[in-house]
């Protein structure tokens, strides 16, 4: 085995070509990591949402909460189930939510976008403890008041506390900002459920969120909802429900993979070019190593390690280049709700490792042909090389 110091020192010695390759690979890895960070952020936003103790009930076959319908009868038939937890005042921990899309102007006259207005019942806040009021106060039912996500407020006009905006036939006043801890609720406006129904002339709700008494209650309620043919509803653990709502991330992941594939072909060629030059300049050195008794495969392995080392350094730099975007909040149109979905670019250790492994693979494939070619050069020819 060639000493790793030999490969490492060669990478340093040829610093000009090393630098060019590192920069090329760093750009590819940075783009890859950034696009994947977008997908991870979106997925995390959905996966972060919900309370494992809660049960989400939607219409069977609905793709999202906003396309679901739960009638008042269905709501009432479940409201008094013995398996539902009650609060200290003996009120059932159930919220019947209504979701609708409202089209509102963005900040800085940047056009308009759909956003989700969620009407929640009196227990809506209790069932979602992760949502915290950070400024202002909660809305009061009947006063045409809303609270908005702080992250959403940064993106839409008229979302400062005290601002008003018109939706449907009426004006709504923003009275507070909430923070949902980087989850799907951060893309929402919250108001009173019955008020939203009245405002948009709805005679039904979109979904129910209930807190079963215990784990057994969760199982029983799920079974009860799904087996009752009259209900035609689907019950699912709230966390699991939102985790599955990650369709938005899928095309972004595809885009990321496509970009990464296209760019990696270029990067592999760049790495190959560098390694051809590196190996070409060391033909006599390789010949000498073979005279000393190093086998062909040892030399191939050494060059592969060198190529992978070189590109991995580029990978690390790529991750560092992408790092400032970690935690940057942005928004996109969610494919489930067709509304503005706010999320944060998220670079996880797993994603960074993936970027570095990706760069090492570029190094591996880029070095393979030059390394094999170099090892196959007859020793005499290699020694005669300048």
């Amino acid at each position: 085995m060639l000493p790793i110091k030999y490969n490492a020192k060669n990478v340093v010695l040829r610093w000009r070509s090393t630098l060019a390759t590192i920069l090329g690979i760093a750009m590819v890895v940075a783009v890859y990591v950034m696009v994947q960070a977008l997908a991870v952020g979106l997925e995390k936003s959905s996966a972060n949402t919900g309370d494992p103790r809660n049960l989400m009930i939607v219409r069977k076959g609905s793709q999202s909460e906003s396309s679901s319908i739960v009638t008042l009868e269905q709501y009432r038939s479940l409201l008094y189930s013995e398996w539902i937890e009650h609060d200290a005042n003996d009120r059932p921990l159930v919220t019947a939510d209504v979701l609708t899309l409202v089209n509102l102007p963005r900040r800085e006259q940047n056009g308009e976008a759909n956003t989700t207005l969620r009407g929640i019942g009196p227990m809506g806040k209790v069932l979602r403890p992760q949502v915290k009021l950070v400024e202002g106060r909660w809305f009061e039912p009947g006063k045409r008041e809303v609270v908005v996500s702080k992250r959403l407020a940064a993106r839409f006009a008229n979302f400062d506390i005290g601002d008003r905006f018109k939706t449907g036939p009426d004006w709504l006043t923003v009275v507070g900002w909430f923070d949902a801890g980087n989850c799907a609720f951060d893309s929402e406006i919250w108001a009173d459920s019955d008020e939203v129904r009245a405002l948009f002339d709805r005679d039904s709700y979109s979904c129910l969120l209930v807190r079963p008494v215990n784990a057994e209650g969760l199982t029983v309620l799920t079974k009860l909802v799904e087996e009752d043919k009259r209900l035609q509803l689907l019950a699912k653990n709230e966390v699991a429900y939102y985790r599955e709502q990650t369709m938005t991330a899928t095309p972004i992941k595809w885009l990321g993979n496509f970009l990464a594939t296209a760019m990696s072909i270029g990067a592999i060629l760049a790495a190959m070019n560098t390694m051809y030059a590196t190996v070409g300049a060391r033909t006599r050195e390789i010949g000498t190593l073979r005279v000393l008794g190093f086998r062909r495969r040892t030399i191939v392995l050494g060059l592969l390690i060198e190529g992978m080392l070189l590109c991995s350094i580029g990978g690390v730099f790529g991750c560092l280049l992408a790092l400032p975007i970690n935690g940057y909040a942005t928004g996109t149109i969610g494919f489930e709700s067709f509304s503005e979905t706010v999320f944060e670019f998220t670079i996880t250790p797993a994603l960074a490792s993936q970027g570095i492994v990706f760069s090492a693979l570029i190094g591996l494939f880029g070095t393979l042909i030059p390394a094999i070619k170099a090892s196959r050069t007859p020793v005499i020819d290699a020694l005669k090389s300048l």
Partner: protein
Amino acid sequence: MNPIVEIRNLSKVYSQGEIQVTALDDIHLDIHPSDFLTLMGPSGSGKSTLLHIIAGIDRQSSGICKVQGIDLLGLNESALADWRNQNVGFIFQSFNLIPVLSAFENVELPLLLTRLGRPERRKLVQTALELVGLEDRAGHLPKQLSGGQEQRVAIARALVTDPALVVADEPTGNLDSESAQQVLEILQSLSRDAGKTVIMVTHDPRAAAFGNRTIHLEKGRFAEPSTSEAKA
């Protein structure tokens, strides 16, 4: 005494398209342990080709080349690499040190292919460097050494595995006369005092004079049979 190198009917023909060039033509030669054999002749006479075949880095077109009783043609590529590591020390005209490694690391290279542990390797490298008078240059990179010192490091690298055979291809070709003298004295001492068989290709009759036996080659054949006899 059995010869360490036995060459019988050895020929080497290079094909360049349709043209065939005979580099060695039906050579017979025995080289004995402790011989310091010098190969002389004009460019293209086949002396380096003969050296390369004996050292196991090239293969003959026909004939037999046995070193220590082993027919090198019977060894595959990997076995030949192992054999070179254990049995041959090679000294090049251009030193061929690895530029990114220190003198110590260069000398240690052939030992990395052995089962020796780090302390044993260190000891052997130090001994080899002491032998060529460069123990105080162990940490220097090749570019920090003079040509003569570089060649002495190369000699230390050739000796570190304690090979029976040391081959040198114009080892003084790139050296000033003082450094060349030092290198030739070391090679002579290896043969005379350490019992190594040394085969050296040279153009320089003064360098050849350090050997105890000289062979002249011309057009792939021994030019003057009388010169291949041992010197008095």
